[in-house]
């Protein structure tokens, strides 16, 4: 592993930590900033993903659609107060990828625990991120993010993104 690869790996780990921090601590307004302007973001199930079905539970083809999602969650949609706790681990950088400046294919496993205001905790989601990150100025951004849920079932609803 070269010094560059060391730095890249740790920067990407920090990226996922920052991403989780944003979603877990109700900083939704910062969330679109983790993506490129023409990003694709999708939450889907392993079943759909592996069947090559493009449908997403959430499907956005621009950063602005993420901005709209946040706006709707803040202003239009009604859901009980709840919080997520992401655990992201097992980061993998596809060996076959180009220099740190180019786009990199990254996968990572996640668990999301959802806690409702009364204190009820559930293992809400388990799955993997299948992402493409690019160097945007001094930071990494998601050009594409697929949050692939192992389960085809969603408990109650999916409000906060994964």
């Amino acid at each position, binding site marked *: 592993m070269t010094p560059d690869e060391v730095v890249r790996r740790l920067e990407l780990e920090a990226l996922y930590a920052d991403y989780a921090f944003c979603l877990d601590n109700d900083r939704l307004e910062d969330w679109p900033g983790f993506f490129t302007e023409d990003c694709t973001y999708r939450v889907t199930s392993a079943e759909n993903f592996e069947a090559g079905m493009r449908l997403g539970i959430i499907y956005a083809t621009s950063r602005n659609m993420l901005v709209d999602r946040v706006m709707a969650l803040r202003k239009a949609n009604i*859901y009980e107060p709840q919080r997520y706790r992401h655990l992201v681990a097992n980061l993998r950088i596809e060996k076959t990828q180009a220099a740190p400046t180019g786009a990199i294919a990254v996968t990572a496993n996640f668990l999301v625990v959802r806690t409702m205001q009364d204190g009820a905790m559930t293992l809400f989601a388990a799955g993997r991120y299948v992402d493409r990150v690019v160097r945007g100025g001094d930071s990494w951004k998601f050009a594409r993010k697929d949050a692939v849920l192992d389960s085809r079932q969603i408990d109650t609803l999916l409000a906060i993104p994964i």
Partner: protein
Amino acid sequence: MTGVTWPKEGNSRVPYRMFTDPEIYKGELDRVFLGPTWQFLCLEDELPNAGDYKTTFLGETPVIVTRGQDGQIHAMVNRCAHRGNLVCLKRQGNTDLLTCVYHSWAYDLDGNLKSVAFRRGIGGKGGMPDTFKIEEHGLRKLRVDHFAGLVFGTLSDDVPPFAEYIGNQIGERIGRVMHGKPTVLGTTSQILHNNWKLYLENVKDTYHASLLHTFFATFRISRLSIGGGVLIGENSGNHASYTRGGRKRADRADSDKLYADIQSNRDGLSLADPRLLASKEEFGDDITVQILSVFPNFVLQQINNSIALRLVLPKGRNETELQWIYLGFEDDDAEMTELRLLQSNLVGPAGYVSMEDGAVGGFVQRAIAGSEDDLSVLEMGGHDHVSDDTRTTEASIRGFWQAYRPLMGL
């Protein structure tokens, strides 16, 4: 059947006990789901080839649906005639024979028992007695019927054919949406923490849409002040509600006035990326939203160009699985497919105009704890259950109870 006596007000009152009582629930599994009702099994196109199968449920009873060698679709209870094992373990697949893993009894695709392992024993020892007749031990078969590419099943011999069961009006409304050869764009599922009937009430509730789903009203996609109405079938458990002319933003002022006092109204919101709401005239009748249900637990939805089937499966008296199948049509072009995919953000577990429906039933379920003897009030639009060209009514919910009560002897 159970100590419950129905309130004298009839269908405009519902005892909360109907959503909580374990005896009621047990009765429903038997009288409604294994009774004289048609329930969605699959799309014909989900089983294109002989040997294709998938599994689903009638209530909580597991069911296999197959495409037989005869090209016909067959359905049977997914329970081995020997000692009750699940015959099909996979949700879908393709096979010549339905072979039970436990003792290798094998059934053909119509559910007839074809072979019993070691039926004659070994070396003249063991095996089944001569009195055992293989033809008496098939899988329990369902009646199957088809409509507009949809397959329905029932265990009842008495229920009329499906077309008759839904009637012409509802039939036309289904045909209107299923205008081509369907292709599945994807599926998903939600676990709802409420009795299955609370979700059905929600689906039939034309009154709530623009109030609970403030996204609707905020972006003026659908408002009660926009033209529309509700059709109720001869079997009043079936319904179709529709919104007309959503796309012409007629007298916005008026309509805003109507919504002015209602919390569900938010002003000055617009989308940073409006492609989400771009939609294409597809049905030639300027109906932008149509929600249709077939008693007891099937829903067909059209919201702009987003088309989905919903199957409502009871999983206990206060848990329900809501399954979604998103559809397009074979002749959709890439642009139309993209449109449908983008509009799918409106519905499903994270849908801008449906996520609330995933939670509100659970809110009711929690709220009625300790109030089983109280009654819900269904008087919007009066007390009857007839079609009307307004959606400011709960008529189709009353229609649901009108269809439900005789089955349950209530």
